[in-house]
């Protein structure tokens, strides 16, 4: 782990006076897939949303500590710049219902001004859809509204939208929690390919130990707003040191 993509020091989050994250110290390696696991309410979503400062949308949030992304403190940066470094996929698919499939992807590129011409935009949209393993399924219906797609396809569309931003880091919050095994397999394959071919840094929140084992290089275990264990997937999956991790992996939580 030479240069971390994300590094947090004593990261604390309080929402309406309640401690949600209680001092998280973490180094997320660049170019790898890091799986974040932990029981419900342990602060996984909160952690992701601190990174792209989406947490600030909630009233009564206090964040303290340090978060560095590629070395720069995100709280010293313009909030929009911070958000544009990350692409995010949420627990439930949330494409914009009034836009076509094409525009749903293109908006990621448009907001970040990554395309200089119409042709370049077309290329980026196609690239993003291919990377999200959705291109073959939608190439003939790019003008359709997104709600004609299945839930799993919509989730990959949201992945494509995030990719079209050309983000440096991908955040995924239980992206397969509500989709079927076939779609889950496709999304996992897309993530592995992104890491392999693009060297993408990926943070994947998942509650499925098998998924973590299948796709991740590192595992981070959250419990009650703290990191209780972290390390390479092979080590943690085979030989967890922490009792909580052990119980979680056995499916007891």
């Amino acid at each position, binding site marked *: 782990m030479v240069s971390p993509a994300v590094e947090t020091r004593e990261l604390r989050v309080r929402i309406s006076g309640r401690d949600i994250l209680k001092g998280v110290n973490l180094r997320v390696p660049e170019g790898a897939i890091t799986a974040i696991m932990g029981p419900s309410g342990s602060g996984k979503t909160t952690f992701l949303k601190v990174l792209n400062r989406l947490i600030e949308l909630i009233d009564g949030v206090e964040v303290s500590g340090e978060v560095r992304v590629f070395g720069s403190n995100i709280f010293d940066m313009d909030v929009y710049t911070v958000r544009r470094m990350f692409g995010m996929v949420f627990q439930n698919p949330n494409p914009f219902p009034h836009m076509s499939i094409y525009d749903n992807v293109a*908006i990621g590129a448009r907001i970040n001004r990554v395309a200089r011409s119409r042709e370049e935009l077309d290329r980026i949209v196609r690239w993003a859809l291919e990377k999200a393993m959705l291109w073959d399924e939608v190439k003939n219906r790019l003008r359709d509204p997104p709600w004609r797609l299945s839930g799993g396809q919509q989730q990959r569309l949201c992945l494509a939208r995030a990719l079209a931003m050309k983000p440096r880091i991908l955040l995924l919050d239980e992206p397969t929690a509500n989709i079927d095994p076939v779609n889950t397999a496709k999304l996992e394959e897309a993530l592995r390919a992104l890491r392999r071919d693009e060297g993408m840094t990926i943070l994947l929140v998942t509650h499925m130990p098998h998924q973590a084992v299948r796709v991740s290089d590192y595992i981070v275990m959250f419990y009650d707003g703290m990191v209780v264990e972290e390390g390479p997937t092979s080590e943690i999956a085979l030989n967890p040191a922490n009792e909580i991790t052990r119980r979680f992996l056995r499916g007891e939580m």
Partner: protein
Amino acid sequence: MTPRRPLHDIIVFYSLALPASLIILILLLLLLSQLGVAIPVLGVQGISTYTTTVWRPSYEPPQQTIIWLPMLEPPERGAWYGLLPAIWGTLVSAITAIILGLTFTIALVVFIEEIAPRRVREVFSTIVDLMAGLPTVLYGVWGLAFLGPLLHRYFMDPVHSYLGIIPLFSCEPLSGATVFTAGVLLSIMITPFMVALVQESYRSIPFTLKEAAWSLGMTRFEYVRLNLSMILPSIASAILLGFGRASSETAAVTLVVGNAVNIGFCIFTPAYTISSLIANQFTESQDFPYMLNALFAGGLILLVIGLVVNSIGIILLRRVRF
């Protein structure tokens, strides 16, 4: 076998179905009586009732014209009731109201929903709701006594003297009672109503979509623009329903529109709208042949505009569903 419905169920059903069907009956009656009273004048003046600009009450009835041939000039002799100026005035005042009202509406909704702190937001929402329910004659009296003179002195006069070459502002405003004043007053009256419609829809945008928008790194401006585009059908609906209200409003408009038969591209002139024409001329219309019928012919237009605009508006309103 389905069980028989209990008697009280049947009684309740029919006693509620009766008033419900009464509503449809009333709507039909309204349409029929409008049409029925309008028909005599349409039988004499024909389509030209709607294409001519002369309003000439007289004891001598209008001369028969070819019903399906629209004329621009009425016959020389006899009474004539051309509704074009009133229709024009209705359109001009309602369109002015919509342009201004839409601007206010978008500004207010964005301010209330995105900029104002929570406290201020609630105060504003309450004020807007309150204003939507005020009796319209209050607006009319206020428009006549304050808004009209104010606009005359500080807006219409200066605009006319500096921008008088533009046809829209080319006529000299003689008083505050003009079709423009009516448009401004109407915009104030329909804004609270339009705000309520647009705001409700804006609020119904799910948080997950807002999160998605912010996560793309949108600026506040881009974010607001995206949200507004998501609720475009509601905005269109607010425009149509607002237009329906503006074009049919009577009490307030009659007080400020100036009530003169006028037609042209200049908005600083007194004019009639269909509703103010009806309100103003109704008493007199008993004395002249066909005049009452002509007013009903105007009412028919209002009814048609109202039905078309409102039903499209309501259909559009149902289109926004998240």
